[in-house]
């Protein structure tokens, strides 16, 4: 932005706690925001494509590549043998080959890369390989893997109290099994990496990734380079949702490998179908549970075993399972519990991070259980939920030993219950259902409590660089990545707020491993918490130097200097910020600074699964009302009311966007998004034609979203709360509203066996099961 426009842009709007547009909004709408594939290609750029396994599990006997090499435009074909360093891109456990070597572990696993003069030539050539396999037994189902004790990691178990004894002694008990499906991230911009060889064996990599530092590491390991030879740059992603945390690595490594081998720029952009076939998704979970409760529905003890489909390798399954364990309680105090998680090894894509990172899969299980308890007792599920909330004497300790000190779930749910007219609508719906033979309505209110921080303490650190230039414009760089969540906007707001200047003065630049080093993934909702604090630290250092400079000139105390309204105030004197920094430069004041932040007070014992893994909790609740067709299982969301706790929001407009978007995404996971593998282990839902994420009509006509008035009681950035993942769990309300509608087919007391995703087929199955359980009544209603 040009200097004169600073004055134009001057408004009375505060930099922080205000709904500024996304920093790239004007570029987005103009089609001028640059994604990796939009970067003007350097002369000589070649394009890579991947040859994929057609077998779920097999020994590779031979790969015939002559036909590939003979295709038009082909420059080279690379296999595992061409990797000079380590053939691995696994983030934690090193069991993720970049290119298959000897054995393939799933349909879609990359076997080789072909590099050609165009994207199309590379893709066409990649299909021409003749691969001979010797089939090996494949495990395609997580429960089959469990039966064979085939796991990617050792089982995890968290036990508190005496669950077995308490279960046995409970006046009422319920046992059951249940499942929720996986979910493809479906970032609109697919995976992509563009590698350019630089002098002395160095590599510059543009990569659509949530974790530039890890990309730097895996590329340096694969190529046998030092970390200082690899620069990873990331301006923005067209969505990430966890899918570009660890799994951008394979594409980064292959682009870099080809660029290094061929000494020319190489871009790797898999087609959407290949992206689906190669990369991991949200873990589907399979539950076996038992719960003991009293006549009011108060849970006395619970036992659950969660089997997660890890896929062929560990990837992030360990931390995902840990977070699932740490979110089985959701907003409820569970006195005596036994929570077990298994990471099943299957011959399918290696499942990975997806917004919520196991948290949703843990929490949705207890919601299912509580809903079943309420139905068994004939209570409104909301009453049973409230009865079990954290709070009250001796009811604030999580199963993993962290005290819940910031609990607002009671107030929040009460507010939403009133605002959404839950009770009146409950009555209206009962009346509607009584008079409606074909269509049934359902209603549910579900709460969220979500822990914020990486479970692994050392990831909770961040760095930033702030440059103030002599014209008063400011550049901020930090270790976080922008994937649409508005991180850069918030960081710019924090810097502007700290320096008391117009937001328009501040520009954020691409994440770049040569600027801020050793960054953590932008994940676990921590982006703004960590990087905002680091940027604030950097801005404060500059502010302090400027304050001392001004203080010296005006003979006042540095603490008395104020930064506000785009001016620096020293007593009665107000100097425009730009003027002051020009003067400060002349006086040789350092106008740039680094900043650093570590989240305080965290601890985690991996062996006992206990400690204080989370700095604080974010809360929320949602009410959903649905209409279900009992003849086909089709349904529609009629209304949704969301109330979410973003603390003292830095940007309420962006946070509302996160809440609404996460709700719809969570709803998609639990309803229409279905991953379907055929009997040979081939994923058949591998493009938007076959895999259906929510579309325009799935957004309810009545959609009310508000942020809960709150301030983080911990010293977070401007007392805000993380907002990326927690609201995904708001989507639970839709699933349980559907279950409520299905229950209305019967006597209301039965707990419909509704699996997730609750596709029309799953809903009709549940309806038929309820009908079968009370057949005469149903026939009467229908005729």
């Amino acid at each position, binding site marked *: 932005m040009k200097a004169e426009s600073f004055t134009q842009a001057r408004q009375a709007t505060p930099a922080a706690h205000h*709904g500024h*547009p996304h920093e790239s*909004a*004007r570029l*987005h*709408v*103009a*089609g*001028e*925001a640059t*994604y990796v*594939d*939009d970067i003007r290609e350097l002369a000589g750029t070649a394009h890579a494509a991947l040859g994929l396994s057609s077998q779920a599990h097999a020994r590779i006997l031979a790969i015939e590549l002559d036909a590939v090499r003979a295709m038009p435009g082909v420059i080279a074909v690379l296999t595992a043998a061409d990797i000079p360093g380590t053939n691995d891109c696994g983030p934690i456990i090193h069991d993720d080959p970049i290119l298959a070597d000897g054995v393939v572990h799933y349909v879609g696993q990359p076997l080789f890369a072909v590099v050609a003069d165009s994207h*199309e030539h590379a893709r*066409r050539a990649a*299909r021409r390989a003749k691969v001979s396999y010797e089939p090996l037994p494949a495990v395609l189902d997580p429960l089959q893997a469990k039966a064979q004790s085939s796991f990617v990691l050792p089982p995890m178990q968290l036990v508190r109290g005496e669950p077995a004894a308490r279960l046995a002694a409970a006046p009422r008990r319920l046992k059951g099994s249940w499942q929720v499906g996986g979910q493809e*991230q*479906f*970032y*609109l*911009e*697919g995976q992509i990496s563009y590698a350019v060889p630089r002098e002395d064996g160095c590599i510059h990599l543009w990569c659509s990734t949530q974790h530039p530092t890890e990309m730097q590491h895996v590329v340096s390991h694969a190529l046998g380079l030092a970390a200082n030879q690899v620069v990873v740059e990331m301006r*923005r992603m*067209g*969505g*990430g949702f966890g899918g570009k945390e660890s799994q951008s690595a394979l594409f980064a490594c292959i682009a870099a490998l080809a660029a290094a081998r061929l000494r020319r720029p190489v871009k790797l952009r898999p*087609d*959407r179908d290949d992206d689906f076939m190669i990369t991991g998704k949200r873990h589907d979970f399979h539950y076996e549970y038992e719960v003991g409760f009293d006549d009011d529905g108060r849970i006395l003890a619970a036992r659950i075993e969660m089997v997660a489909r890890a896929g062929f390798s560990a990837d992030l399954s360990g931390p995902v399972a840990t977070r699932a364990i740490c979110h089985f309680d959701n907003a409820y105090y569970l006195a005596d519990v036994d929570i077990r998680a298994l990471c099943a090894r299957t011959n399918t894509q290696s499942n990975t991070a997806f917004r919520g990172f196991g948290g949703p899969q843990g929490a949705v299980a207890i919601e299912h259980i509580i809903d079943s308890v309420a139905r068994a007792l004939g209570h409104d599920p909301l009453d049973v939920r409230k009865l079990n909330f954290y709070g009250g004497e001796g009811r604030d300790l999580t199963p993993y030993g962290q005290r819940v000190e910031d609990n607002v779930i009671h107030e929040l749910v009460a507010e939403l219950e009133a605002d959404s007219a839950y009770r009146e609508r409950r009555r209206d719906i009962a009346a509607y259902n009584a008079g409606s*033979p*074909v269509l049934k309505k359902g209603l549910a209110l579900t709460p969220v409590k979500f822990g914020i921080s990486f479970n692994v303490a050392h990831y909770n650190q961040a760095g930033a660089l702030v440059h103030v230039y002599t014209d008063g414009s400011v550049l901020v760089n930090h270790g976080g990545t922008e994937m*649409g969540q508005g991180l850069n906007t918030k960081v710019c707001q924090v810097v502007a707020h700290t320096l008391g200047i117009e937001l328009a003065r501040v520009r954020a630049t691409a994440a770049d491993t040569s600027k801020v080093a050793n960054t953590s993934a932008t994940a676990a909702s921590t982006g703004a918490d960590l990087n905002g604090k680091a940027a604030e630290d950097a801005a404060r250092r500059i502010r302090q130097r400027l304050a001392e400079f001004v203080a010296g000139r005006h003979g006042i105390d540095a603490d008395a200097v104020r930064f506000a309204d785009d001016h620096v105030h020293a007593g009665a004197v107000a100097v425009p910020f730009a003027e002051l920094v020009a003067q400060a430069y002349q006086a040789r004041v350092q106008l740039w600074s680094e900043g650093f932040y570590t989240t305080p007070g965290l601890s985690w014992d991996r062996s006992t699964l206990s400690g204080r893994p989370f700095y604080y909790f974010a809360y929320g609740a949602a009410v959903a009302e649905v209409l279900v*067709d009992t*003849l*086909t*299982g*089709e349904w529609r969301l009629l209304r949704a009311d969301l109330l979410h706790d973003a603390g003292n929001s830095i940007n309420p407009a*962006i946070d*509302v966007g996160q809440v*609404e*978007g*996460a*709700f*719809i995404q969570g709803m998609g996971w639990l309803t*229409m998004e279905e991953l379907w593998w055929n009997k040979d282990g081939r994923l*058949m839902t591998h493009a*938007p*034609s*076959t895999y*259906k*994420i*929510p*579309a*325009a009509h*799935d*957004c309810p006509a009545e959609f009310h979203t508000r942020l809960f008035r709150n301030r983080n009681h911990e010293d977070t950035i401007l007392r805000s709360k993380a907002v990326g993942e927690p609201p995904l769990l708001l989507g639970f309300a839709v699933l349980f509203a559907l279950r409520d509608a299905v229950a209305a087919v019967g006597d209301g007391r039965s707990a419909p066996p509704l699996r997730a995703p609750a*596709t*029309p*087929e799953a809903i*009709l*199955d549940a309806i038929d099961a309820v009908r079968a359980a009370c057949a005469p009544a149903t026939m009467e209603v229908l005729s």
Partner: protein
Amino acid sequence: MNTDAIRFLLNGEPVEVTGIAPTTSLLAWLRIHQGLTGTKEGCAEGDCGACTVVLGELAGSADALRLYSVNACIQFVPALDGKAVFTVEYLRRQAGDGLHPVQQAMVDCHGSQCGFCTPGFVMSLWDLYNACVPDGTRPDPARIRSQLTGNLCRCTGYRPIIEAGERMFEHTELPLDREAVRAGLLRLRRREALDYVHEGTHFLAPRTLAQLVELRRQRPQATLLAGCTDIGLWVNKQFRDVGDLIYIGQVEDLQQVGEAHGKLRIGAAVSLSDAFAALCLPYPELGELWERFASPPVRNAGTLGGNVANGSPIGDSMPALIALGAEVVLHGPRGRRSLPLDAFYLDYMRKDLAADEIVEAVEVPVHESALRFRSWKVSKRFDSDISAVCGAFALRLEDGVVRSPRIAFGGMAATPRRALRTEAAIEGRRWDEAALFAALQALAEDYAPLSDLRASADYRRRTAAGLLRRFYLETRAQDPLDTQQTRVFAAFDSFAAQP
């Protein structure tokens, strides 16, 4: 070899293109050849809308300018000959380097997060904006939703984008200079057939039916191309070599919709949008199906003739057309012939169509007496999904007795097919609970569906029965139920009435 150059308007300026394969997609051409990277690739199969652009063409005897959105990923560049192409880059130019009202509304409403789908949404909204501005109409949220069903957003959940569709009219109006576009297109107009050649492969765009029939006779191996919504996928996804292409989109005679002798005749090159608009006048019951049939960009490009000629077992138009007793008109060197649509489908993807024949039109009887008719599809998602089951039901009631029932399903067999046993079970019976019971029993005998990624065979059976029951409940002689009592999506019949 001599070739005609492909000529069209790109963002208002005439361009001439040669030297590209005839199957080069507009998206690839824009991004790679023109450096216009505002248009994005999200799926390369017309299902995400990140590549949405707007086309303009002259239509009708008055040469009116017609604008419509399409997916650039499944438009072959030679098919644009004589048309106008507008990409997102045009909007700022139109706004004198500022933001167009559509773009400003998107910013105001926080309608972008990651921004990757955003240019596509902006173009879909721009299409709607241009449709509304000239006559001062304002779309309600339902109309806006309907316009956006071909654009996927993974970030926002759509609410702010729908709001932007309402608020885009709050800014100073910025109408498109239609006259300038019209004038540009008139200058480009071609009198003769286009013969574009690249490395020996032809892209032929005849202008008359006679030319088309003759070309087809000469080149029975060539691929007939209409909207490119399926053939685009053959190329993008399967790398199929489609050889020479004969494009029917410039054949004047195939673009006509007309009613004569109690039949609605829809030319083979009529878009699905126009075909359904025509069909919904006599049959407003098709409103929901229309709304759910693909998405605006696909319906604008794809043709009813193409849907019928393709003959996929899960094509959504055929059950309704079969139930209505539609005929398909074929044309070849030996002249014309018509046959009932249900007789056209022989087996899986096999039709009663000679190599030198073309589908010329679909003719749909417009029944005078009150036909009880319904057609519904069932899929995992409301918008733009492929049917698990698509059913269509038509019958007359004479004194409460069923006459001439026609029932057809898609997704239940290797072809779209009539439920003959079911029809026989109710012909001449009182339309009551007993007849329904007989129909349901017969229906179980009519089909042996498959299980696949969309649904299990069992679900298909139960849902086909469910649709039949719904039809019964809405049409039975005694106490028929109102659609409010039978349909989750009851609101969509109203769309049929919209122009």
